[in-house]
């Protein structure tokens, strides 16, 4: 008994020391949960079509991914960070402090954000940013006065919308989607209703007015969803009057359960998003650690494969799943090919 235990412990110690010496043979990716589905599609295809092992892709959010990306250079740090927003100055600085300097920025395409409700529920088929603002903001403009949001039904401010109780499920603040939602819908609505101007006239600075616009009501009619879109879908399933906010790809995969609303009269689709007609969309990125190219096998090949026409182009599997292809993909392909780092021109 004792001998068996000693042998087992010795084995464990050998295993530990062997690991420290082994080199990593697969690309390691982490970051945005919006980019994760696309990255997993590309990773699988990469493993199927090349002799490199399938890359490992983790999620956790854009900020968390970039934070890990900026931890330093070496095999125990990630090679690629996925992000549903551009890297910030602060993050570039943090990267530089840790020795991560040659960062290659790659834009893979666009993601649309749609407003959808239960397929059997009331007809929410046409939204304006102003409607969403009036429904969800903490303070709105009524008869020229800024007041605490008095509305309880959608029809209260827009007779075209159904007369049902307001309940909406916007993404929580840790999501990249939230930022786009605030900027392109809530702020636009704030300006369109004149609430923003009224606040500035009331003595607020422009920045304060923007912040005030983006405060959502806290009386239970706007419920932040911190989890994934599946959680939003579950809420919508349980709530016929609920309006949820989803990524285009998620909505398209669940068309048998969801009904989408137009924004400013434009229906969301890959075509309207690529042309810029549909107002609520954002670019998706990944960032490559230049210092790992040539060290981690398959890193550059993976990046080139990701942005190739056959993958990220309008007929590729990513577009098929719901990514809106970038019309300037050729430029991105060149940048990856030439390993153009950020701040090196172009």
């Amino acid at each position, binding site marked *: 008994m004792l001998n068996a235990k000693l042998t087992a412990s010795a084995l464990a110690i050998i295993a530990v020391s062997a690991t420290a010496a*082994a080199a990593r043979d697969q690309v390691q990716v982490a970051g945005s949960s919006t980019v994760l589905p696309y990255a997993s599609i590309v990773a699988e295809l990469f493993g*199927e079509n090349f002799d490199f092992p399938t890359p490992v892709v983790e999620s956790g959010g854009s900020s968390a991914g970039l934070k890990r990306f900026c931890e330093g250079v070496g095999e125990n740090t990630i090679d690629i960070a996925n992000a549903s927003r551009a890297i910030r100055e602060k993050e570039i600085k943090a990267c530089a402090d840790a020795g991560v300097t040659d960062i290659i920025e790659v834009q893979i395409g666009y993601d649309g954000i749609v407003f959808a409700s239960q*397929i059997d529920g009331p007809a929410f088929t046409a939204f304006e940013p102003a409607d969403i603002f009036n429904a969800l903001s903490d303070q709105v403009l009524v008869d020229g006065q800024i007041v605490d949001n008095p509305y309880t039904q959608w029809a209260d401010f827009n007779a075209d919308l159904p007369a049902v109780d307001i309940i909406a499920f916007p993404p929580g603040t840790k999501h990249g989607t939230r930022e786009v939602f605030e900027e392109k819908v809530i702020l636009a609505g704030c300006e369109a209703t004149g609430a923003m101007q009224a606040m500035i006239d009331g003595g607020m600075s422009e920045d304060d007015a923007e912040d005030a616009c983006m405060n959502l009501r806290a009386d239970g009619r706007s419920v932040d969803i911190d989890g994934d879109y599946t959680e939003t879908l579950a809420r919508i399933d349980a709530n016929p009057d609920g309006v949820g906010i989803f990524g285009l790809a998620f909505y398209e995969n669940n068309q048998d*359960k969801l009904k989408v609303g137009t924004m400013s009269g434009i229906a969301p689709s890959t075509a309207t998003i690529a042309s810029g007609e549909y107002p609520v969309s954002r670019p998706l990125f990944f960032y490559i650690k230049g210092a790992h190219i040539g060290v981690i096998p398959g890193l550059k090949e993976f990046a080139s494969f990701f942005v190739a026409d056959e993958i990220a182009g309008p007929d590729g599997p990513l577009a098929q799943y719901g990514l809106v292809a970038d019309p300037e993909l050729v430029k991105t392909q060149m940048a990856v090919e030439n390993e153009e780092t950020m701040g090196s021109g172009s």
Partner: protein
Amino acid sequence: MTDATHGMSEPRQKTSLTAADARTAARNRAEKRFQYYGIAAIIAGGVFLVLLLTAILSNGIPAFQRATVNIEFTLTQEQFDEAEGTMLKTKVYTGFFIDALTAQLTESGIETEFDNKRIERLLGKVGGTIRAHYRENPQDIGQPTRFELPASSRVDRYFKGTFDRSGIGDGNRFIMPGDLDFADDLRAAGILTQSFDWNFITGVDTGVDNAGQAGIGASVLGSFMMMIVVLVLSLPIGVAASIYLEEFAPKNRFTDLIEVNISNLAAVPSIVFGILGLAVFIQFMGLSQSAPLVGGLVLTLMTLPTIIISTRASLKAVPPSIREAALGIGASKMQAVFHHVLPLAMPGILTGTIIGLAQALGETAPLLLIGMVGFVARYPETFLQGFEGPNSAMPAQIYNWASRSDAVFTEKAWGGIIILLIFLLSMNILAIILRRRFERRW
């Protein structure tokens, strides 16, 4: 006082052995009531268990079935060379397969109209499987080979009756109502069939657009490797620590402090161990990310307190007379412990260890931080790589699938729960068998 004065004048109440008096009756009623409460509690627990199991089974069992396309397909040497010469090889193989299928269908005289696009919408991602087959079996090139390839997830759900066709229109990119009629025809012709999905048990994770081929196999192996690490490290360390603390250590403030700390550690949220693992094992010691070895080390830290506490309890439960008898006939303290006390405490130690392992098996939070929750789609190639190569774990895989947009993945998540429960059940059965074998009465 009042009793004393009045008691004498009134006749004493008669009691009978056959008729219970009021107080006895009340006590009996209270006991009956308490029994009913107990039974109600058991029934409530049972109802919850039944609800849970029904939910898991009804949602999870469909995951073990999948719709497949069964045809004989011949790939020529020229086609093989042509496909291998391109970058996106799997797409070219898919194209060949669709052409072959179209030819066969035209021949068989299916009435519904169809084109390549329609077939494409019915098929899952097949290119990868076809390429892998011909790369491994080059002798099959030029020979008719029977393939059983997954249909698209919409068709899969349609056959299982979980897809509502009223919600889709003709403009849908993924499936159109006409496609489903066509699928019915193919099903009648025996080309589309439903069969048991072995791939779900043996396969690896797949991309989000390839639900038909996703399997939990690799993550079962990942969990198994972690359990080996946890067992090999935490059992000897935990048992050695408890024997010392229980049998040899002097009782003083220092050992009291250790004792308090161990009890506290058992209650620390598991995510804390994940942060520790990231800082110590990955950033400081330089072990690789996403590796079951690191996962195992983190879970070892989590399991140790449980094992130490249960081992000490079972050592304490061994009657002192056994120690004293051993010492009395001249055994050294170590001999007394190892020859007499430890074997008697073994059933308790094993039970504690298995409970600790079961707890570790279901843990996801610490794995989140060491990179085991994510898309890991490969089997390790060697035994050693099973520890140090990237892999996922069952709960992580389930969590991952549950958050994907394709409803087939949600179904697979439920199916994964069934596999996890089977894994847990077999561990518990093992614990019971071991306990029976070692059990000794005194």
